[in-house]
């Protein structure tokens, strides 16, 4: 993206910023870094300065622009509702154009080009998680045609820590008698990491491929356990089929009494993933599912729903500033512990991965579970 395009896309948006600073206390990066460059206001000022020719596109800028989590918390605090995260992502595209972006993203883009996944694994290994399946016959999972496509996403497919999640979700769907399939090795990364990396144009190929595959299956619905995949599909993929998050599907199943939920004695809290909650508007479905499980004691986090604080895993920040990401995760963990619960439920594999990794690093005893795992736990109680 060049500056002319940036101006066209974002000038009116950032011009709305009156520098009132109301967003400052909401930004997790400011909470840690304590400097203006780590504030939404600062990031908007940078965008504006670039557009008005007061700042050169240089490496200097990259630090401020590439440490935004894209969590959107600032916009919720902002009375004119300035969309900082989209402006930041546009800035990233400009910086990429002039090669002032962090080099690690070039590698990411190459990897996606070659492997179609973020972990540089053979894409055929996408179905590795099926090893965790116990009582679900393979043919139920990979079909040529189905009503529902389950889009697993890179994190759940490749990160061992998260691989149980798709297995559990598939098991639930199987027991509920749903007609679903996965795309297996034909599922490509949705392209989300490229947006955060400032390479939105590179999403096109991945998108075309995924749309084509889904069409072939003839699905009416696509279901996602990864909120960021869902968000990307909703905003960048033009398709008529219904797009759902796993928590929404689970809520429907609960509503239709298709799940035989048995008591689980557990005190839990729930972390709203940015891309599911604030950025897609799904707040109540996961809560309804949690509360429908008998025996659960549910407490809200001090900052919940629109005010939920990012886990530190957003916006590819982990790749450029791991210390910042870790410090934000640490604060998230402290917030969770402040509720005096030992179990946090989320419905995003990336959030869980960030929280668990950092808790382990600090030797903090914290149990982090995906919503699907909690549901399966309830189903499998005697």
């Amino acid at each position, binding site marked *: 993206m060049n500056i002319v395009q940036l101006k066209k896309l974002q000038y*009116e948006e950032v*011009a*709305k*910023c*009156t*520098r*009132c*600073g*109301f*967003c*400052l*206390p909401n930004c997790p990066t*400011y909470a840690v870094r*304590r*400097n*203006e*460059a780590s504030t939404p206001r*600062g990031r908007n*000022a*940078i965008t504006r*300065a670039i557009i008005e020719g*007061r*700042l*050169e596109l*240089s490496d*200097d*800028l990259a*630090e*401020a622009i590439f440490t935004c989590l894209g969590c959107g918390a600032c916009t919720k*605090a*902002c*009375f*004119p*509702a300035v969309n900082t995260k989209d402006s930041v992502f546009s800035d990233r595209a400009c910086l990429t154009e002039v090669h002032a972006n962090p080099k690690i993203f070039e590698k990411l883009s190459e990897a996606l080009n070659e492997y179609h996944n973020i972990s540089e694994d053979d894409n055929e290994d996408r179905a590795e998680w099926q090893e965790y399946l116990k009582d679900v016959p393979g043919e139920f999972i990979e079909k040529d045609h189905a009503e529902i496509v389950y889009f697993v996403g890179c994190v759940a497919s490749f990160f061992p820590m998260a691989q149980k999640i798709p297995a559990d979700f598939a098991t639930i769907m199987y027991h509920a008698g749903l007609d679903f399939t996965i795309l297996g090795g034909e599922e490509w990364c949705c392209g989300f990491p490229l947006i955060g990396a400032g390479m939105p144009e590179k999403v096109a190929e991945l998108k075309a491929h995924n749309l084509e595959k889904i069409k072939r299956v003839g699905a009416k619905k696509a279901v996602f356990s990864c909120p960021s995949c869902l968000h990307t599909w909703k905003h960048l993929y033009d398709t008529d089929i219904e797009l759902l998050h796993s928590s929404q599907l689970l809520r429907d199943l609960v509503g239709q009494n298709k799940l035989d939920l048995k008591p689980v004695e557990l005190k839990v809290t729930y972390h709203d993933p940015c891309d599911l909650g604030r950025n897609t508007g799904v707040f109540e479905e996961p809560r309804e599912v949690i509360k429908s499980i008998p025996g659960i004691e549910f407490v809200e986090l001090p900052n919940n729903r629109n005010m939920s604080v990012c886990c530190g895993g957003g916006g590819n920040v982990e790749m450029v500033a791991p210390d910042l990401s870790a410090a934000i995760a640490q604060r998230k963990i402290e917030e969770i512990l402040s509720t005096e619960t030992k179990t946090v439920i989320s419905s995003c594999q990336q959030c869980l991965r960030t929280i668990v990794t950092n808790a382990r690093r600090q030797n903090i005893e914290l149990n982090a579970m995906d919503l699907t795992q909690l549901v399966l736990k309830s189903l499998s109680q005697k």
Partner: protein
Amino acid sequence: MEIDALRQRLKEIVGQDFVLSSNVDLMLYGYDAYLEMRRPDVVVIPENTEQVSQVVRLAYEEAVPVTARGSATSLSGGPVPLKGGIVIHFSRMNRILEIDVVNKRARVEPGVITLDLQTAVAKKGLQYAPDPASQKTSTMGGNVGENSGGPHCLKYGVTTNHIMGLKIVLYDGEVVDTGGKAPDRPGYDLTGLLVGSEGTLGIVTEITVRLIEQPEAIKTLLGIFETIEDASNTVSAIIAEGIVPATLEMMDRLVIRAVEESVHAGYPQDAEAVLIIELDGLKDGMERIADRIIEICLANKVREVKVAKDETERNILWTGRRGAFGAVSRLRPNYMVCDGTVPRTKLPEVLRRVTEIGREYNLPIGNVFHAGDGNLHPLILFDCRNEEETARVREAGTKILRLCVDAGGTISGEHGIGLEKLHEMSFIFSPDDIAALWKLKNAFDPVGGFNPGKVLPSLAS
């Protein structure tokens, strides 16, 4: 000293990570919520008084200006480093050092967010009363710098009425305490002079505040009016009745609409004005007073008076009020707020003239203000990218301030002079007055190193 050498010395004082000097950083520390921008030469983010003291001493030795900065929400250019130099950002000095429940005092560092202090003391059943609309992001240091007010200041007074003592770094780096937790220390009221001095007399590194009991009961009413005159008359009539509520806040149609678009506070979009009237104190008698207020509203042709049923309804009314400035930038990207204040009896008349000025200059003006205090906030809406329009806005703003002064008022009620209203200082002060202020400035800051170019116009002009 070369700038690089200065930066190096600063790094030795506050540490590598907390000295910022990249092109981007300098641009980012050049603004506040007002229009003007100026770059500093270097930014430091100190951790304690000792570091601040060393930074100031170095600046003194090297004859470099120092400007303090909290959250930079000032609306008058307060933290903008007009003459460059060092900006001290207080974001890391944000600890609440002590909450002394028995003595009803708290001690905080200047970077503490106003609302964070309020939340912390509320847990102990106490309150810190001054509540600027920016409380969720403004710092205590900034509140002290500007002597901030807020809706509840009608009853409880502004920031200065709640500041008991300060720790300040003087121009040469020396550190002294003024006031204190105990009352009536003999000597000049330095604390009172420092509050509202916009960082031009000394750098505050610790603040001792007075806390008060939370009220036993609160009642919040929303009066909805068909004309702004009816609402203004109601304000006068309530005060005339011998009732001083906790708040008397007014918003006009333009602001109501903008706010409703941002949050659904439940203000009717077709009303010309709303009043937020809040009573607090003992529960006994409150019902009768509220009824009396409703009667007064009715006598002034109110369309409807809504009573907030619970804490949630009350919060949403206030959220709307606090977001009013921000919300209007949905209509036009910028606003200029004229902070003129008039004797409250002059309110209706001055409001009418403000509307006329808007018409005269062909500029949209919204009103949201502390009606009970006579503190106007006409918001002139514009787009600062349009230079001709911006010039017109400045002219209209000056005219509104002149209008306030002519009505027996003043040019700033709570936002400060900064660099915004230097020119208008001559509306209210004679050259002798200004000279008297300069003598005080010189007593505190003989070298003129603190926030130069603010508050006081030069003697020649």
